[in-house]
């Protein structure tokens, strides 16, 4: 069998990529996808760790995180749509009125 640590390493890489994606992409939707990537990494970590320790709670936790992710998506997309309809852009780089 594969060492759970390897799964978690993959998860860490996913998290890392997701985080970097947050930094380099300017489309709000894609940024949001990156967050989903990160959450997936978290889920993978939880499941792998739970398995390594013979604990089912990891999987239960994943269930909740999935729900959270879904709810976040709904609201997030609503916000993005709302902004798009006013500004006709989804690029966060154009949202920098407030600074300093």
């Amino acid at each position, binding site marked *: 069998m594969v060492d759970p640590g390897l799964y*978690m390493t993959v998860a860490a890489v996913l*998290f890392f990529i997701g*985080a970097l994606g947050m930094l380099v992409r300017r489309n709000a939707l894609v940024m949001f996808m990156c967050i989903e990537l*990160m959450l997936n990494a978290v889920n993978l970590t939880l499941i792998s760790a739970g398995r390594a320790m013979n604990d089912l*709670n990891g999987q239960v936790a994943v269930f909740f995180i999935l729900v*959270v992710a879904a*709810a976040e998506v709904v609201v*997030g997309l609503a*916000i993005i749509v709302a902004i798009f309809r006013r500004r006709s852009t989804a690029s966060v780089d154009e949202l920098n009125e407030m600074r*300093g």
Partner: protein
Amino acid sequence: MQTPDVNWLAIAPDLALALAAAIILLVEVQWKPRARILGLIAAGSLVVASGLAVVQWLAAADAVAAGNVSVLSAFSGMVLMDGYAIFGRFALLVVTAMGIASGWQFFSDLGRRCAEGLALVLLATTGFSIMVSSNNLIMLFLGLEVGSIALYVLAGLTREDKKADEAAIKYFLMGSFASAIFVYGVALIYAGTRQLTILGIGDFLGSFIVGSPGVILIGIGLVIVGLGFKVSAAPFHTWAPDVYQGAPAGIVGYLAGVAKIAGFAAMARILLTAVDDFDWSFLPVISGIAVVSMLLGSVMALVQSDVRRMLAYSGVAHAGFILTGIAGSSSDGILFYLAVYAVQLVGAFAVVAAVSGPSGSSSDIGLYRGLSRRSPVLAGSLTVLLLGMAGLPLTSGFVAKFGVFSDAWFNGHEWLVVVAVLASVIAFAFYLRIVVIMYMEDDDAAPIAVPGLVRWVLGIAVLATLIWGILPGSLLNIVADALPL
């Protein structure tokens, strides 16, 4: 087959709020009543919830007195009903009530969306209330998300101003990012301990020596970052100025207050209960964040020309001061500080909202010129509140600062205290700047009418600031009992 371990009392206040939110939404759909009715429902639920919180408090006190603390843990250890949680919840309720009252103008102007607005506020409070009382980190995360998502929406909930869009999206993206980081930290702590409950982690770390704690340390770090974001500690604070400035004036005080209370209550509980065996490793980091927050917040606040941004940076500085309390390992000091600061913050934003006016989105410092003439009530209240935030003696802010500073010193962080007192001096400068403009410069602009509810909010905030400052025992004695399990 197990049965759920139900303890209605433990969730009764949260339930009351959630129910009220649901009722508000349903009533709106069915009857489309006037905003006032919805407001009364919300107010009623807050009163009921507060009453239930008091009942909880008494029950918890009895249980502690009887030595039967196990009943304080409910739903299979999912949530706790300890004094710490109840106090935090009560603070949230008070801030919510004050927030709604001071932002009532905003809510009633929402028109048909008033119901959603109120429901979101109540739900956010419920979420944060869960957050401060939860024992399970996933539950805590759920509460955090419930609260945060509601706040993202609230931040964008205005039709007048493009700034609100920007605030909402910034808050949302950054908040989600931070949440993901936080929950990854939770996952890593789980990987290190096989525990998801705070008490469980604490027991585990207290009884076993982890040979290779790296994963736990990373987890702690990420949790600190995630919650550091919520409480806007530097360098995770960047959202705060923009959101405070862009979000509707009527809601910012609430938004800022509850996020700080819940974030810090959770952070203190995790750090001081769950992973306190690692305090040798994270306290220096906490001190570092505290120093950066205090200095950066104070210095940046000096140069702001928008009062809301200034208050945001001052919030960053306050986050640093509260972190000093964590360095002092004193949960009661933190709770006191949170209660005091949140009340001041809501009060201050009530003034900001009143000065900016129902439609105005600007809170430029110039608007405050000669405020002492245009509205002595607003100017006087804001002065007291600002002085309270500055931590001048005879205000609650001083007692709060004194408490966390002395705890930090007693815990061996002398230099942190020295930096903290110096930073608070820098902070004086920008609080005074507003006072200067209000009192020492004259302007002939029209007087500002202050709604009755706002007067009440200000009265309470000012009285609380003064009473807790002059007779700190009135609150400190309570806080002293509000210990985490």
